[in-house]
Each structure stands twice: as structure tokens, then as C-alpha cells.
């Protein structure tokens, strides 16, 4: 099988990380006579500049056409060695990475003989794969310098302006008749007291001034095709119109929904029990003394953590376990806003824990010193709200009184509801974006790739990804802008060629692969007389769901062909099953 191949094998000590537990010299010797191998060596640190130069010299001097490096995890150095292979002049996809550290030496620190045997088997498998490798070229696609922003809350609007600053054309699609999102009609917002309505108005005015931004309201995506750099999108606009757009990237700035309490949850449903968003909707429109249904409000009770940090119980089989982040800030800030109003209003804030991180802590302090009373309750003994002859009565066990029960007669009970994932069935069906355990849109990596998604070219902007304050939402949106901008300003994108391919002779179009593909990368095409499957290269992720499904063995993933995998297994089991 390896006739005429010239493969170089390089086995790393990793200082002692590998060589302390695997006899790396024995491994190099054991594989030196494998078919196709022309050189087999050890290096103290394969990734060092000196070792890389030596390998480049071998690639060129021995005219290698395949490379196996047995070292650390590919997560660490696969790209290092791919680049090195290219500098040496061989195709980077003819380089095979064997993980001898995480998957061998570190896993078997108590058995050097066994680890060495396993190391030999792993390297043999790598050689078998390299000897069947073929040169592959990355797929270069041109990118369209336009972006679609879905959602015109502060995240979407601020993101659109930043994209426009980069010289990219922007389309914004907003589902509602009015742009601006959650805060568009509200007054003072934490932490700096700027009005929500004013922030939104300023953003919208600026958006309207830009020639390269087009804002569609009452608009929703109804069809999508294409791929990174070149998406084709249809928007429904108003009742009857639609527009077709071609964009290179998308920002998902669809925000969140507020938790809707169940009937009876903290008295929800009773007259005078409202959520914080409902409260802001009427209170922010009033000047002077606070009134509810025309009557002055003297006593208000706020209940925190409603719909957040829930525990699994019979009544709550699918709890929202996360903290909604914004709400302690919003609740304590609202306390200060109420203190600023005329009238002698008493306010009681029933909380589980106060999480006013950063400079919101000073707002909490101001609320307390100005007379808002904070009472801590335990989640196992939550406050109750009852409708009595005296009006609404909230009963709470105050932790600071050692759990003594206190009744508060309240004119108004405000439930500080958390953020929940936006309901967006149409959009989710079109985009096929995965969601996290909490139901929010999932990022690719929680720390290192917080705004990218599994769909290349689709980025998460703001609270659609997880509960966030305004500053955090805008920060996330601008991160998404920098990813989209970085992609589109270059003008092209190179895609991994390690994707599925169809053997048109074997394929009989049964559509099994189409059903199996999670990325919609399979299409039906005509091929001569018959119909066959076709892989849209820019959509295929190469994860191979289609391959084992095909009843006619017509599919393979480049770089991981059935032939290569079989050869690897054979090589691994050489001693067990003599050839």
C-alpha cells in the first residue's frame, strides 16, 4: 500500500513529559522499518525552532511526501506543525498528528512497557494514515461585504453602527413595528441613569443618518441558504412585502424574553402583583408621586430572583437554574429611583442574595442608606402573597430576625423576573443554532470563542446568548462585530477541505445522507442519467454523520477515508493479528 511513499516520522520527548513514561527511542526504532518510512527520529522538543528547522531539512533533503509527528495534543501544536510542513514544501494535509502525551504517556504513568507498546501501535496507525494521504487544498470562497443584523435592540443597533463604521453595508431586521428592544420606552437605567428611551433614540437617529444601514421593521427572516461569506436571505417585511438579501455574515441580536410567572406564583394574577417590566411600563411614564390604578402607592414590596436560580421540584420540572445577572442591579437601582420621587413611600426588597457586582454595589448602598429595607429570605421558605380584606399581604421570614415571620401590607408587589431565552421558532428552524442547557443560543467556546457559533459566519450579539446588562450586551455585540468585520474585510475565507465527498458511481440517491446531515450540506443533483447526492463544500463540516448511514458506501470524509481508518486499525493490531 505504501509503494513509493517517503514518510518521515518524528517522535518527541516533550522534555520528559513523554519520554519519562514511554521509551521514545524504542518507538522510533520499532517503526523505522514500517512500509514507506524513510526516516524515524527523536527530538527533545519537536516544537522548538531548531527541531522544526531540522524537520524542514529532512522534508527537503529526503523529498518526503508524508509526515508523522508523535507529540502532544493536536489542540496544542497541530497548526504549528501544519505550518511547518507547508514551509518545508509538502501539503499540510499530508501531515499526521499522533497524540503521544495526553493519550499515552500521561495516561499510563505506571506502566512504561505497556505505554511504549501502545505508543508503537499509535505511531504505526499514524504512518498507515499518512501513507494513504493525498494533497488537499483549502476551499477559498469570496465574501460579500454586507451584514444582516437580526434584532434592533441596543445590541443590534450599536453593532450595526460599528459595522457601518468599518465601511460594511448593514441590513437590520426587527420583528416588532418599533425598533429599540426591551428598554425603548423606559426611563432611568442602571448604572448611570441615562434613560433607555434616550439611548435608543440616539442610536436610531444615528442609524437613520447612515447611508450604508438599512433598517427593516416588522420584518422577519423567512428563508435562508448559502454559507459563510455568501448567505442568501429572504425577509418578510410588513404584511405583504418581502426582500431578498445577500450577505457575508449575520449577527444574531434577538435578545431575551422576560420570565412570565405562573398564575399564583408569588400572587401573580392578583390585582397589584406585577413584574418589573410591567412596573416600568407604567411607573416610568409617571412623574411625581407613584400611583397605581390612580391611587397613590405607599408601600411596595419587591421580590427578587423570580424565575431565576430555580431548583427542580414537582411544580418546576424544568428549572431556570442560572442567575439572570441584570436583576439585582435593576432592583436596587429602582429603589433609588423611587426614593427620588416625592411622597413618603416605603419599600421592602425581599431577596435571596444581592449580586450587585462592580460599581452597582454603590447603588445598593445608596438604596439601603436612603431607607429601602432589604430582607433576606431563604429559597426553601419563599415569601407568600395573599389577597386579604386589608389588601395584598406579603409574608416573609426575615433572616436577620432569625427567621421571624413578618407581614407587609403592600399596595403593590413587584416580581423581579429573570431573563429567559427568546421564543423564536421560525428563526431557530432556519438557522439551526444549538442552544445551551439553559436554552440560550450557544457560543462555540464559553471562554475563548464567546460570540462565534457552529455556523461559520453567524455571530451572537448581546443578551440572545445569555442574560446580560446593557453594557455587557453591547460589549458582546461589538465582539461579534469584530469577528464579522475581521472575516469580511479580508474579502475571502479559506475553509478546511476535510469534508465529505460522494462517489457518484456508487450513489443511488436514497436521501439517507440528506436526513442525517445536521448542517443541511447535502443536496440532490443530476449526474448524467441519474440523481446523486452532492456535498455543498462550504456547508459541510466534515464531522461525518452521513458516512456510516449511506447504505451504498458512497460517502467518505477527506482525510478520514474508510480506507485510511481501516489501514490505521490494521496497523494498530499488527501484533495481535499477523498480516
Amino acid at each position, binding site marked *: 500500500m505504501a509503494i513509493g511513499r517517503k514518510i518521515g516520522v518524528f517522535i518527541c520527548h516533550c522534555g520528559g513529559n513523554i519520554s519519562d513514561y514511554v521509551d521514545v527511542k524504542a518507538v522510533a526504532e520499532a517503526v523505522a522499518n514500517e512500509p514507506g518510512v524513510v526516516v524515524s527520529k527523536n527530538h527533545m522538543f519537536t516544537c522548538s525552532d531548531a527541531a522544526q528547522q531540522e524537520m524542514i531539512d529532512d522534508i527537503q533533503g529526503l523529498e518526503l511526501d508524508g509526515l508523522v509527528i508523535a507529540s502532544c495534543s493536536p489542540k496544542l501544536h497541530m497548526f504549528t506543525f501544519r505550518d511547518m510542513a507547508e514551509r518545508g514544501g509538502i501539503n499540510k494535509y499530508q501531515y499526521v498528528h499522533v497524540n503521544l502525551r495526553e493519550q499515552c504517556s500521561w495516561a499510563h504513568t505506571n506502566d512504561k512497557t505497556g505505554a511504549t507498546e501502545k505508543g508503537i501501535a499509535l505511531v504505526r496507525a499514524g504512518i498507515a494514515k499518512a501513507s494513504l494521504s493525498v494533497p488537499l487544498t483549502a476551499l477559498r470562497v469570496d465574501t460579500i461585504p454586507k451584514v444582516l443584523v437580526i434584532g434592533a435592540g441596543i445590541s443590534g443597533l450599536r453593532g450595526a453602527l460599528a459595522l457601518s463604521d468599518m465601511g460594511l453595508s448593514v441590513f437590520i431586521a426587527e420583528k416588532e413595528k418599533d425598533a429599540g428592544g426591551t428598554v425603548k420606552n423606559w426611563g432611568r437605567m442602571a448604572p448611570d441613569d441615562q434613560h433607555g428611551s434616550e439611548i435608543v433614540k440616539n442610536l436610531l437617529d444615528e442609524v437613520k443618518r447612515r447611508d450604508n444601514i438599512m433598517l427593516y421593521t416588522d420584518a422577519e427572516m423567512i428563508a435562508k441558504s448559502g454559507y459563510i461569506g455568501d448567505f442568501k436571505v429572504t425577509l418578510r417585511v410588513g404584511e405583504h412585502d418581502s426582500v431578498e438579501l445577500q450577505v457575508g455574515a449575520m449577527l444574531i441580536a434577538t435578545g431575551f424574553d422576560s420570565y412570565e410567572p405562573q398564575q399564583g406564583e408569588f400572587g401573580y394574577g392578583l390585582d397589584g402583583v406585577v413584574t418589573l417590566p410591567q412596573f416600568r411600563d407604567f411607573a416610568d411614564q409617571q412623574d411625581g408621586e407613584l400611583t397605581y390604578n390612580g391611587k397613590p402607592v*405607599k*408601600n411596595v414590596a419587591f421580590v427578587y430572583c423570580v424565575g431565576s436560580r430555580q431548583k427542580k421540584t414537582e411544580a418546576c420540572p424544568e428549572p431556570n437554574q442560572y442567575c439572570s445577572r441584570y436583576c439585582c442591579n435593576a432592583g436596587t437601582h429602582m429603589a433609588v429611583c423611587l426614593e427620588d420621587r416625592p411622597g*413618603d413611600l*416605603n419599600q*421592602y426588597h425581599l431577596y435571596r442574595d444581592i449580586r450587585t457586582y462592580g460599581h452597582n454595589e454603590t447603588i445598593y448602598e445608596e438604596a*439601603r*442608606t436612603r*431607607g429601602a*429595607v432589604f*430582607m433576606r429570605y431563604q429559597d426553601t421558605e419563599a415569601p407568600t402573597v395573599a389577597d386579604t380584606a386589608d389588601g395584598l*399581604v406579603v*409574608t416573609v421570614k*426575615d433572616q*436577620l*430576625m*432569625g427567621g*421571624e*415571620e*413578618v*407581614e*407587609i*401590607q403592600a399596595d403593590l408587589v413587584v416580581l423581579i423576573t429573570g431573563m429567559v431565552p427568546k421564543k423564536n421558532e421560525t428563526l431557530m428552524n432556519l438557522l439551526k443554532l444549538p442552544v445551551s442547557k439553559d436554552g440560550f443560543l450557544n457560543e462555540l467556546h464559553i471562554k475563548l470563542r464567546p460570540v462565534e457559533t457552529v455556523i461559520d459566519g453567524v455571530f451572537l450579539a448581546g443578551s440572545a446568548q445569555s442574560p446580560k446588562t446593557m453594557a455587557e450586551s453591547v460589549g458582546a455585540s461589538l465582539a461579534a462585530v469584530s469577528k464579522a468585520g475581521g472575516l469580511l474585510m479580508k474579502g475571502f475565507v479559506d475553509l478546511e477541505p476535510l469534508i465529505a465527498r460522494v462517489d457518484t458511481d456508487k450513489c443511488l440517491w436514497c436521501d439517507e445522507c440528506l436526513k442525517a446531515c445536521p448542517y443541511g450540506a447535502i443536496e440532490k443533483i443530476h449526474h448524467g442519467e441519474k440523481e446523486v447526492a452532492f456535498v455543498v463544500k462550504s456547508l459541510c463540516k466534515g464531522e461525518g454523520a452521513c458516512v456510516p448511514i449511506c447504505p451504498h458506501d458512497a460517502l467518505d470524509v477527506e482525510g478520514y477515508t474508510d480506507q485510511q481508518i481501516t489501514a490505521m486499525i490494521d496497523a494498530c493490531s499488527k501484533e495481535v493479528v499477523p498480516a
Partner: protein
Amino acid sequence: MSRVSSKLASAVKCSDTFNADACMHCGVCTAVCPMGIEMLPRKLFRYVQVGLEDKVRENISTIYQCLLCGMCAENCPAEVNIADNVRFLRKYINENEFNLS
């Protein structure tokens, strides 16, 4: 079970004297009190802060036992002005319970 009184709650809020918001319930005041008044001041202040008038009424004799010596305030790590708070309470009781003004 006791119910919050708007009257006391408002009086506490409007007062410049009463302030127990910084109290962290450490108990130092109780430990140093020469009268050995067990519940003064932290628990009492909590009742007052929340506006539990009936609890205040139940503890009138305790409130008048205090010597206003200031040991507690001297030692309070949160700098709660305990003696002033007791003065405020006595004034409130004088006015509302004993109808003195």
C-alpha cells in the same frame, strides 16, 4: 407573626437620627453592654428598621433600661450610632405611646 406599620416605617425613614442600615449583626454591642441587655440593640433595631411597631411596644421596658452609656457605639465595628438610635426610639414611644410631646 407581626405586621409592618407604615407609621413607624415612615418615621424611621424621615428621621435623620435613626440609622441601623450599616449594622452587620455581629453582636459586639450585646457583648459589651453593662446592663447585659440581651436583645439590644441589633435585634431591636432590625424590628425598627423593618417597621414592626408591635415589637417595639413589647420591648418598651428594655428600651428604657438602656443607660445611654455608649459602650456599644464605642465598640461597634460598623459605626452604628446606637445611643442616638435609642434616643430616637424613646422619642417615638413618648409621642405615640405615652402621648407626650
